[in-house]
């Protein structure tokens, strides 16, 4: 059982509760002090990293069984990684990895994924996407565009649209705009059209590790065979797994970039320039899998020795080396646009609520979490909330509608388009 690998972490958790909060030095107000959406919603300690550590230890030691309730405790977590950042400030532990292992254990014990997850899981298995859409329609978003088809042509850059931008009619424009911007900047870019397949992040998030690995290794082989130098995606979810999980599956002969990083690079190279004023005050939401989850992980296979030292020494990811500056640089470069920051940003960002299979299995929890973010965004005085992740955009957008917030939900690429 691979939870066993984390026994040191589990028995050494000191119950300090750091994992429930933004690091104390970065707390700016009472209302925006929390980091864990699950704890905020369900209140009991069990619904925090600390409580899930206790559950994991109790499961390992046979004190409790993997029951339906245990599965509920395990899955009511957005895998946002907030706890991972704050615990690691203090301790040499891996909360996020433990949370993933708990899901794998739930699957192994027949308690996971939950019924709410199954349509997406089955659809990935059957259609290579979690949206119950046919494979053949995957490339339709780009059918009116002139773009290299990398199943036939060669290019330096693969634009990987991802399932949500490919199929969701409301969001497809993000993929099209991104592609257009790359093309206009002279980037040698192509797409895979209907041959693109799910990154399998949703499978990994619900504990279907084998399924994830199978998809990931297929994708790695495909991208390697294409001979591309760079894979660019606009989806933070795809980006997060490609950047931090794929390296553990196989050797990648390509680099992975999120489109906002690429825009930032093009701006610096002078290949992208903004000429039009966009008179708007906006606030930026750091998607978990682009921000703290966008930091590459050290693939470590070792043991804890005397005094808890890691053997071999482990490089830990603290969540601060994710993609935080690039979107801010792009926004600040737009003439007339004002960026008003929220209190919880960068590695201490508050999750949108959609991740970890929560939106499909616990929609109310997802919306409540989003509501807290909307209120935080409103308090900055911004007119629009901007992000670059389809999950965040949908969930935050739904919450804006549900509470009748005056905020507009925008994708960063829309602003880039307006400014060109």
């Amino acid at each position: 059982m691979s939870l066993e690998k984390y026994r040191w972490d589990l028995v050494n958790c000191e119950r300090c509760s750091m994992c429930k909060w933004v690091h104390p030095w970065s707390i700016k107000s009472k209302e925006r002090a929390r980091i864990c959406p699950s704890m905020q919603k369900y209140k009991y300690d069990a619904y925090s990293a600390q409580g899930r550590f206790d559950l994991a230890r109790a499961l390992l030691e046979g004190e409790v069984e993997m029951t339906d309730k245990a599965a509920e405790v395990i899955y009511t977590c957005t895998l946002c990684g907030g706890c991972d950042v704050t615990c690691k400030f203090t301790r040499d532990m891996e909360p996020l990895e433990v949370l993933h292992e708990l899901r794998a254990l739930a699957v192994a014990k027949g308690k996971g994924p939950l019924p709410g997850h199954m349509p997406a899981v089955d659809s990935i298995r059957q259609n290579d996407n979690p949206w119950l859409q046919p494979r053949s329609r995957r490339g339709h978003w780009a059918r009116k565009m002139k773009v290299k088809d990398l199943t036939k042509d060669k290019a330096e850059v693969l634009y990987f649209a991802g399932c949500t931008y490919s199929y969701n009619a409301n969001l497809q424009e993000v993929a099209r705009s991104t592609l257009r911007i790359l093309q206009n900047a002279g980037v040698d870019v192509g797409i895979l059209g209907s041959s693109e397949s799910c990154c399998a992040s949703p499978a990994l998030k619900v504990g279907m590790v084998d399924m994830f690995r199978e998809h990931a290794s297929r994708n790695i082989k495909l991208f390697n065979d294409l001979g591309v130098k760079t894979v660019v995606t606009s989806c933070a979810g795809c980006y997060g797994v490609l950047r931090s999980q794929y390296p553990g599956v196989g050797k990648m002969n390509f680099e992975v970039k999120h489109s906002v990083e690429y825009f930032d690079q093009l701006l610096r190279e002078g290949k992208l320039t903004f000429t039009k004023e966009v008179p708007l005050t906006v606030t930026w939401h750091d998607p978990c899998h682009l921000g703290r989850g966008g930091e590459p992980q050290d693939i470590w296979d070792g043991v804890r020795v005397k005094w808890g030292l890691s053997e071999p020494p482990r490089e830990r990811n603290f969540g601060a080396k994710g993609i935080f500056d690039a979107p801010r640089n792009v926004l600040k470069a737009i003439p007339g646009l004002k960026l008003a920051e929220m209190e919880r940003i960068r590695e201490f960002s508050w999750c949108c609520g959609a991740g970890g299979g929560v939106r499909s299995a616990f929609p109310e929890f997802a919306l409540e979490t989003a509501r807290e973010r909307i209120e935080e965004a409103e308090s900055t005085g911004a007119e629009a909330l901007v992000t670059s992740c389809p999950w965040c955009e949908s969930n935050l957008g739904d919450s804006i509608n549900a509470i009748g917030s005056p905020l507009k939900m925008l994708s960063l690429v829309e602003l880039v388009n307006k400014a060109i």
Partner: protein
Amino acid sequence: MGLPEGAYQALANALGAENICDDPAVTSGYSYMWLIYSTHAQSGRYRPAAVVLPRSTQDVQTIIKIANRYKFNYIPVGTNLLPPTIPARADTIIIDPKRMDSIVEIDTQNMFAVVEPYVTYAQLQAEAMKHGLTITIAEAGAQVSVVANNMFQGMGGTGHKFGYNRGVLGCDWVLPNGDLLHIGSRGNTNADWFWGDCAGMNLKGLLRADSGHCGGMGMVTRMAVKLFPYPGPQTFPVKGANPNFEVDFPKDRFKLNLIKFPDRKKLIEAMYEVGHAEIAAAVHEEPASMVLSGASPSVEYFWQKYPDFMKQWRNVLSVTLIGFSSARQIAYEQKVLDAIVKELGGSFIDEGSELWAIGQDNIGEQIRTGLSNRLFRIAGDFFVIGGFGFDSIDQSYKMSEDYMWPLIEQGQKKGHFVPDDTHNDWLNSYQLGHYSETEPLIYFEHDLDAGASFINSYAQTVVEAVKRRMCTTWPLGPMNYISGPTMCNYHELVLKIKKAVDPRLTSNPDYPVPQEPPKG
């Protein structure tokens, strides 16, 4: 084993089904305490029978009345850092105050705040700073509950200036029979929260002396705490990114001094002199292990630096000056400190030196604790050797040097405790040096032998402190039977009070003093 029949339903009816849970998947989250685990090697039997989430004082009264009616036990908790929050009996519920998390009021004129039990120090201070106010934060961390900490120790960074747990004012206290008691000015009609005392007998004394009643006498549901002036920025001035944060307080109002003394005796003299001169906000002896762990982003970093750092960082006194009234206050206090340091042969660690870089965040730590839990990074478990004598500075020092360090060395020889030959403690001055506490820190692995070494040493220091007629600290539960007999049998009195207010012994029954002395 669960609750008596009907009890769960009674609680669910009163609180709503979603505010009580007895499922092991949930109660496991309240069952594990590192220290109990490494000293007793088990945890499952400590799982509570249920956890309840009250929303109000009235809910707490109802819970406690139901506990009395059905006869089961309860433990009120804050953030559960302390061992007595883990149940020792099966029919015990946890009263978790997560839904009682309001800052009820910040009275900027009279400089106090009223909080519910799940408000943390960081939250309260963040709001207080907006009004130019602050509060002393426990070294346990700014993420602990203000109420719970004040029900236990309530000591921290700026205690030299602001006092050791002197900040509790009016309180709402639900007694173990479910009655609500108003403490301090809260008890006078229309007098509100502003003062801790009241006319007649002062019941505030029942709340706590050194370390409270560990949940053994009901639950405080609202507490007014004193706030103090704060001349800094409205938000805590932090720079950098995880795991390397730095603080950046305005230099004309906040000044950290790290001073090396030729030996501990001189350091202690300096602590007294600083107190006599009535200068400084925070004054602590800072041991090498603590300072380095605070600056360590990983256990590997710590151990790479430690052997050399331990040689260089000895007998260092950390003195934080705060210009509460003006920049001139800092200038004056610095001059006084310079003279004291010169007279006692100390030398300031240069700003810009490598040692300074490691110790510089101490100023942030004194104002809002954010580094202290990194002590656990060193080896897994951390504690103090115990019985550390809340007494005068030199008595604390004597107890530590004569008695505790030899015990630490024994543990080190056995390979149980992390090597440390500095003989430096976390020795703190409170109330301008009138009162002190010393914590000789030890670090050990999660290992039964090391745990046994720790617990035996701890018990021995309590016994020794008692022999010396020193006030032992943290005499938790059964330890009162060791310290009581030489201190006017206070434990008997405490037990009588406990029985008077909690005749059915439902409130964390073994605290503050168990009914029977420990066996063996």
